[in-house]
């Protein structure tokens, strides 16, 4: 009973105060402290809807979580390999003979009959054209052609160790991590920049990507952020305006993986398992939620 009355009273007081524009903000700040001490928390919410919001004390920033998706299929685990072999075996057992195999059998039969002593070539005049090329010869030719083709190697250990090459670990998806100065510390984190007035957070994220020394083309996945990390500055550094920063993360997928410029020292491409060694634990906890290692 008391709480709703209190709510009504606070709403009246707010509307009365809103007639005085200049003193409004200060009185409302005072009012906010008063009402938070008593239990009408709902009053704050209704107040924020009916009036212009006072600027939030947190600074806003946007970061980009740029992923390079896997380029080649992963190796099979032992269970997967044995299952694959078994499936191929079952498939072979249950299948019928194909045209090529029939032809092989026929040719083998004909060859055997030719080599037998009583061979009458007049019976074979309907198959004169097939005598020229045996199916076995065709198979040999294909085998030869296949051996002549050299595919690019799947695993290159030397490139895998270079942490700043985008060509490393082609079977996994990699995340771009940059070393940036935040406050007075140099930290490893996902590339971020401060938000400026008049632009959406996604544009800020795009700016963050463009500000990197290496030109990378990416497709951003949607306008909505995929994660948030907020931190409060240590007490001595806190001012009225900046209590801390809220960083919103946006996901993007790398479009072209051709390294146009030589790799820089400040950028790394890391797998999810390697991220823990570089990111701060609290940050890692938030970021690890939306980076999928599938």
């Amino acid at each position, binding site marked *: 009973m008391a709480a709703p009355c209190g709510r009504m009273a606070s709403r009246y007081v707010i509307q009365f105060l809103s007639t005085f524009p200049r003193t409004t903000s200060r009185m409302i700040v005072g009012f906010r402290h008063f009402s938070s001490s008593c239990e009408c928390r709902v009053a704050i919410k209704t107040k924020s809807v009916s009036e212009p919001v006072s600027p939030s004390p947190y600074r806003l920033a946007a970061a980009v979580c740029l992923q390079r998706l896997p380029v080649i299929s992963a190796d099979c685990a032992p269970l997967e390999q044995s299952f694959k072999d078994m499936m191929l075996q079952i498939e*072979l057992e249950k299948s*019928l003979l194909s*045209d090529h195999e029939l032809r092989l059998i026929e040719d083998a039969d004909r060859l055997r009959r030719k080599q037998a002593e009583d061979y009458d070539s007049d019976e074979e005049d309907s198959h004169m054209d097939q005598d020229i090329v045996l199916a076995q010869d065709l198979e040999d030719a294909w085998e030869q052609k*296949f051996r002549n083709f050299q595919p690019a190697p799947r695993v290159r250990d030397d490139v895998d160790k270079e942490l700043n090459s985008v060509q490393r670990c082609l079977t996994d998806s990699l995340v771009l991590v940059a070393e940036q100065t935040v406050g007075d510390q140099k930290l490893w984190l996902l590339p971020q920049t401060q938000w400026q007035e008049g632009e959406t957070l996604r544009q800020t994220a795009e700016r963050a990507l463009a500000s990197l020394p290496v030109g990378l083309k990416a497709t951003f*996945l949607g306008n909505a952020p995929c994660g948030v990390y907020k931190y409060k500055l240590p007490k001595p550094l806190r001012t009225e305006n900046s209590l801390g920063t809220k960083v919103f993360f946006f996901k993007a997928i790398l479009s072209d993986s051709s390294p146009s410029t030589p790799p820089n020292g400040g950028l790394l491409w890391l797998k999810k398992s390697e991220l823990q060694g570089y990111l701060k634990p609290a940050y890692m906890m938030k970021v690890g939620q939306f980076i999928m290692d599938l």
Partner: protein
Amino acid sequence: MSLAFTRCIFRGLPQYVVQQSLLVDGHNAAKSVICVPSMTLRTTVPLRAEPKKKKKVDPKRELMMRERLKKRLKKLEKVPPELIPIEDFVTSSKCMDEERTRSAQVVSFEENERRALLLKEWSRYKREQHMAEMKSIESALEAQREALDELKITSEELYQAALKPDFSLLPFTHEGPAYTPPKSQYEAPDGNIMMQPGFILSKSVFIMQEHCIN
């Protein structure tokens, strides 16, 4: 007399009347008409065709014809449409060929046991994989929900901007992983993929499809 004779002959032929004043004839001072046969090209428009007579009966006849056609159409439509045979559901005669059966390979009892156990292992493995996938998707969704809540508290207009659909994203294409990485500066040989209908898989086919590796 000659004049009368010529008149008898020329009566049957198409005639062209000429005024006698043009002709110089000393004998007859009076005007008389002389007909000249015109076997030359006809230069005048045929003036003898009659326009189609539009009687009152004609519209009625047309209406009757239209009604008859409509009735015929309705009769035809009443017949249920013939079903088109689906190619895939009909076993092709090639598969029924007896020559094509492989020699029955007897699978030993141990082999059967091994296969059954492997299948059970596989189902357990796949289930774990599926649970891991679902979990990671859920955690990603939770992170996004948290981010949107935070954004709503922070700034309403940024929140509204974040909720807008992104039309430049779709259609989105990305080439999936192949077996080997792409070779830089590789020129693929010209050619077509030949796939005949009723393509039956067999081991020898794997040799032919080397272009899939690139």
